[in-house]
């Protein structure tokens, strides 16, 4: 009897440890020539073209059944792509270069989002309170500035803005916090300035905030901020699928760039940005070409700030 119970117990214990949770389903199974593709994205303004392209059938017409996985953490996207949970991902170029210097096998396959290139009219900027003594980027020296991720694109481009304005970028004191917390932190005086993107940028400006640096514009002309990427494994095993995906994304980018009203409308589908904010926020640019010179600049700036373990190999990373 006792032996039977002990055996049962072993089975139950083993079972209870594995029973919790169902199987994670994998994409990329071909069914009647249609490829199921999962794309890891962040549900922000930047990825509006892919939602729009999905709606317009740019992916379906290329036999791609698209699932957009809007996980919150952008940090999960690169591991997700490498482990084949997502076939493609969306990430900013600094993060991609960090991954590349760590020899993570990924490659950019299409442009993601780019700066408008116009100071004061871009989708990302450093802002301060209306009453702040900070007037220009140079005044940021020695101040506390919030960025969404430390040692990433936010602090790199902010340092460059300060450098170009003649300030000492080494004195900047960056703190990490999620974008949605920044309006309150700024209003409350927890930080002196905030590096934000839309929609928080518009929210802060509407509350009287003042822009002191158009960081993407200062960093490089027409900076490519982010890109869609895949694993080198998928690129080798199914170059045809990758090619079709790139074409579909490119068509989506072009469509989005020329139909801003539809972009603002599609935001209602995957974000909860209210109508007023949707109609007023600054849209980025969605060029098809990755601006390689700007990525090189971003790489140089990152190296200068010491956020890479070695120099990024853009030959390997960019398409």
């Amino acid at each position: 009897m006792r032996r039977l119970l002990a055996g049962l117990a072993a089975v139950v214990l083993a079972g209870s440890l594995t029973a919790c949770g169902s199987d994670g389903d994998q994409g990329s199974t071909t069914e009647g020539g249609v490829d199921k593709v999962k794309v890891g994205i962040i549900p922000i303004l930047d990825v509006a073209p892919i939602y729009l392209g999905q709606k317009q059938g740019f992916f379906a017409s290329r036999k791609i059944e698209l699932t957009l996985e809007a996980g919150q953490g952008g940090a999960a996207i690169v591991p997700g792509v490498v482990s084949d949970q997502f076939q493609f991902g969306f990430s900013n170029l600094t993060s991609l270069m960090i991954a590349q210097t760590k020899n993570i096998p990924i490659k950019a396959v299409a442009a993601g989002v780019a700066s408008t290139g116009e100071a004061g009219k871009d989708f990302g900027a450093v802002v301060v309170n209306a009453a702040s003594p900070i007037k220009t980027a140079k005044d940021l020296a020695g101040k506390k500035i919030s960025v969404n991720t430390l040692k990433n694109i936010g602090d790199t481009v902010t340092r460059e803005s300060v450098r170009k304005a003649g300030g000492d970028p080494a004195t900047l004191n960056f703190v990490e916090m999620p974008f949605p917390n920044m309006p309150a932190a700024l209003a409350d005086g927890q930080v002196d300035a905030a590096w934000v993107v839309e929609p928080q940028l518009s929210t802060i400006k509407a509350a009287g905030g003042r822009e002191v640096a158009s960081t993407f514009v200062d960093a490089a002309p027409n900076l490519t901020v982010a890109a869609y990427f895949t694993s080198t494994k998928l690129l080798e095993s199914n170059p045809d699928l990758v090619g079709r995906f790139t074409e579909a994304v490119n068509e989506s980018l072009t469509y989005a760039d020329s139909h801003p009203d539809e972009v603002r409308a599609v935001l209602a589908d995957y974000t909860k940005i209210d109508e007023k904010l949707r109609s007023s926020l600054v849209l980025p640019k969605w060029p098809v070409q990755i601006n390689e010179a700007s990525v090189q600049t971003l790489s140089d700036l990152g190296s200068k700030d010491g956020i890479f373990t070695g120099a990024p190999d853009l030959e390997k990373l960019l398409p």
Partner: protein
Amino acid sequence: MTTARRDGPVRFGHPALLGVAGPAGLLLVMELAPRLGLIDDRFLPPASRVLAALATEAGTAAFWTALGDTMLAWALGLAIAAGAGVLAGVVIGSVPVLRALTASTVEFLRPIPSVALIPLAVLLYGTDLGSTLMLVCYAAFWQVLVQVLYGVADVDPVAFETARSFRFSAWARIRYVLWPTALPYVFTGVRLAASVALVLAITAELVIGSPGLGREIAVAQASDAVPTMYALIVVTGVLGVLINLLARTGERRLLAWHQSVRGEVTV
């Protein structure tokens, strides 16, 4: 809740009335604090605006899908955890060697916060229901297991030995002696696990971005839709109250015969 002890403190008004007065007072404070300028209404909008946002949300299909996803994750996770917890508890509890063998392991694993397992969950199950389930199961399982272990330990040894001397089979001993004794503990464990499961379901959705109310909260936050965000948080609170009510009612109905329930007066 709606039960009170016979010799409790002096009662003011009907308990149900007081139960309603609590949230009403909270709503009033939430309405007045921003209106009086105590808090910036950009960051805590008045209750009326939150409720208006809730009404708008309730009119969208996405809200109900998210609510369904959260409830599914909660129910599935709780069911798996309760089933596994009861089975493991009864088996471990009735075999002293196993109990001694697992005691330190259980105490080691139990306090590990489920949230710390998020990277593992994402690696194993991606950003789908699976990863929510893993966190929910992990957290809820220990609540049930530990209660069942206590329940099994509470079995009267004389009753157990009597059953043995009457040549009750092992199954009959579990069914007629062990199970009735352990049942109130099982219910306590499941009731605790029900709340924990909800907290973990929302947390997983919020952090991982798996489908459900938690993800909607995160999206509302990222979209600067502050009233909508609070509206969704209110929904999770209401869910918690409903789940607790359900668990308590179920416990009272199913354990009506047990001393622990008979001893209470239902108002």
